[in-house]
């Protein structure tokens, strides 16, 4: 025990302190009971005016905005009243995202790339939210928002080229798979360092406001990484400058093997973080595609009206492992996924469309099949550009480009050394690269 400073009687009659280390409710093999989760009826949450004072919406930070009910119908003031065509599009993007994840996961297992991350069960938090934004609103995603790119029409082959780090990869094979970037689609370069994108999104939104632009910014961050100081900076700068930004917190319950309690979830909600900053805060059923859309639309309207930023907690569940490098059976109960009380976002939206008489199981099956076929076909096209480690990558000298706008002398020297090493190893020239590295 650490020495106390000298001094008589200190601590003699005081109770022993004890440290609390959070522990999730269920571990592997445990039977799962989610009855402690309070799931309000769909349609019961109030929907305040977008320009309201955050003080008037405290209960929304602790409740759960839900639209789709057990009867598969839309309920209450948050119903975005989307037409069937839009709903089918939403379902299509979500199905495509899921098909893409399935194929890329398999591709990693087949050795075609080093790494992949699925977003299974969280599709609505990116697809539906993204649909509520304008196509030129700037997004600063984390690493599990592939649904945004699919929704925004980013060519799938570019995604696969990036995942394979092949010669078609626009990022020249520099980034870990799934760390996409597309300026054309107002999609910021994904970092891989956690939560750094959140204050950057605020900065972008501040710039847009400085310039009298009309575009807003939105960022996505996991509940685990809200513990980073960057997230606090984001909230502070957002509220100080009333920045036109949306802070989306994806509470999928797990950060690799650490449950949300290690980010503070045992004490309060993530949406309630907003209250201390004076931000508008919404807590939303993240597996309810209509609620996701409605909340993001509310926040976008608010930002566009110069009424301020919003922090949205999407309450959802990470149905798969953290990444291809993770095995969740080692730390959580397999039952969690099946017992999750908020269901599956794709199934719920499908059932809603069926309940509306605008969809049926046959069409769903056909759509899933077409999605899988499309991904398969595109994967083949991408494989013509190479897969990781098979030589079809970018010319060697690109390794030294883009460190600076211009190549300084020391990088020129290092590039020459690298090329020399290459030529020593492959005196006849590189198999797939042609001459000149």
């Amino acid at each position: 025990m650490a020495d106390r400073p000298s001094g008589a009687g200190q601590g003699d009659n005081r109770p022993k302190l004890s440290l609390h280390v959070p522990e999730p409710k269920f571990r592997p093999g445990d039977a799962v009971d989610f009855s402690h989760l309070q799931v309000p009826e769909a349609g019961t949450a109030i929907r305040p005016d977008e320009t309201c004072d955050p003080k008037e919406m405290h209960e929304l930070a602790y409740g759960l905005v839900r639209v789709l009910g057990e009867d598969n119908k839309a309920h209450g003031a948050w119903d975005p009243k989307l037409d069937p065509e839009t709903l089918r599009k939403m379902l299509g993007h979500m199905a495509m995202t899921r098909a893409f994840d399935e194929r890329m996961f398999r591709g990693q297992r087949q050795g075609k790339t080093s790494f992949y991350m699925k977003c299974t069960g969280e599709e609505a938090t990116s697809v539906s939210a993204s649909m509520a934004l304008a196509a030129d609103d700037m997004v600063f995603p984390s690493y599990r928002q592939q649904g945004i790119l699919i929704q925004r029409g980013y060519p799938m082959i570019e995604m696969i080229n990036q995942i394979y780090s092949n010669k078609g990869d626009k990022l020249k094979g520099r980034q870990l798979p799934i760390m996409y970037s597309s300026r054309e689609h107002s999609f910021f370069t994904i970092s891989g360092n956690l939560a750094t994108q959140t204050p950057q999104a605020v900065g972008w939104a501040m710039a847009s406001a400085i310039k009298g632009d009309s575009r807003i910014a939105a960022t996505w961050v996991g509940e685990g990484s809200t513990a980073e100081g960057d997230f606090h900076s984001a909230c502070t700068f957002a509220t100080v400058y009333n920045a036109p930004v949306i802070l989306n917190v994806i509470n999928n319950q797990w950060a690799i093997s650490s449950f949300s309690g290690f980010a503070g979830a045992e004490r309060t909600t993530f949406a309630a973080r907003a209250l201390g900053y004076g931000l508008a805060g919404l807590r939303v059923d993240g597996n309810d595609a209509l609620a996701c859309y409605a909340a993001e639309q509310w926040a976008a309207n608010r930002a566009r009206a110069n009424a301020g930023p919003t922090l949205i907690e999407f309450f959802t569940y990470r149905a798969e492992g953290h990444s291809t490098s993770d095995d969740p059976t080692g730390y959580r109960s397999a039952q969690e996924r099946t017992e999750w009380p908020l269901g599956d976002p794709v199934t719920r939206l499908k059932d809603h469309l069926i309940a509306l008489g605008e969809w049926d199981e046959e069409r769903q099956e056909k759509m899933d099949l077409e999605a899988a076929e499309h991904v398969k076909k595109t994967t083949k096209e991408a494989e013509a550009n190479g897969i990781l480690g098979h030589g079809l990558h970018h010319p060697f000298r690109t390794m030294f480009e883009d460190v600076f706008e211009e190549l300084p002398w020391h990088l020129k020297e290092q590039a020459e050394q690298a090329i020399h090493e290459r030529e020593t190893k492959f005196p006849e020239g590189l198999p797939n690269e042609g001459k000149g590295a």
Partner: protein
Amino acid sequence: MSEAQTKNAPVSEQDATRRLNMIEAINDALDVSMAKDPDVVVMGEDVGYFGGVFRCTAGLQDKYGKTRVFDTPISECGIIAVAVGMGAYGLRPVPEIQFADYIYPGLDQLISEAARLRYRSAGEYIAPMTVRSPFGGGIFGGQTHSQSPEAIFTHVSGLKTVIPSTPYDAKGLLISAIEDNDPVIFFEPKRIYNGPFSGYYDKPAQPWKRFDESVVPEGHYSIPLGKARRVTEGDRVTILAYGTMVHVVEEVCKQKGIEADILDLRTLVPLDIEAIEASVERTGRCLIVHEATRTSGFGAELSALVTERCFYHLEAPVERVTGFDTPYPHSLEWAYFPGPIRIGEALDKILAE
């Protein structure tokens, strides 16, 4: 190409009477840059209404408005991060970190984000920001207002590091830094904000206005990043220095009557290696002087480069004079500072070989 710059740009007769200290020169550079480019924004703790704790941004908010010159929360992480976002939008932010000693909470945003945006996005996004920050000791700032952390930044690929030593250079280099499309760390040696420092702390300070380096032309001019300045020309020894130490070594050489080739590096990355090689090949001796702590300091890099590239021209081992590997002490500031005695003895040693 291989010679360091020896002369300032010519100034008109009218300009010749316009003498500024380094604070005024920096303020002038910001003013000129903001007038020229509406995308330049200035932000930081206390920089807005008040004009900065060292007054470097005085008057700019009045002139350019609150949305281009504004105060920020006390969050270096946040300041650098929003500058990254603003750069991605298309602005050219010039954040101030009030003291270099406070820059560490912003390091992840500088090292993992700003410095790598261009690379990781293959040029789709860049971080054209200039982070200004007063650095160095000699003002009784204690261990939290005196550090010289330049080597932390020169070690990062994708960052440029610039350190001026005169008002004329401060303006020209800052304008270049702001116009540069890569992130630049711009360290301002606060000991010489008001006048050059001879290293003799017990002698009266001299204001900049008595020195020709304080003649600062009006309007736009720039000094290219990566070009050293020759302070004095000599054949006996090459001295590599930057910031405050440029003036200290100049005074020591004067006192000792040593004709030294003193190079003010001005930019550490990119480094003017050609000027260094040309000088050392001529003199055969090299002394490196910086105020920062010794171990893994930028002097180690310079020493390695000179040894690797000029070994057969060397007539004596390369010497380093630096601060000690301790925190910067408050009351014993001048015992820490690499002053005339430490420099003089190193010169004696290198010249005796």
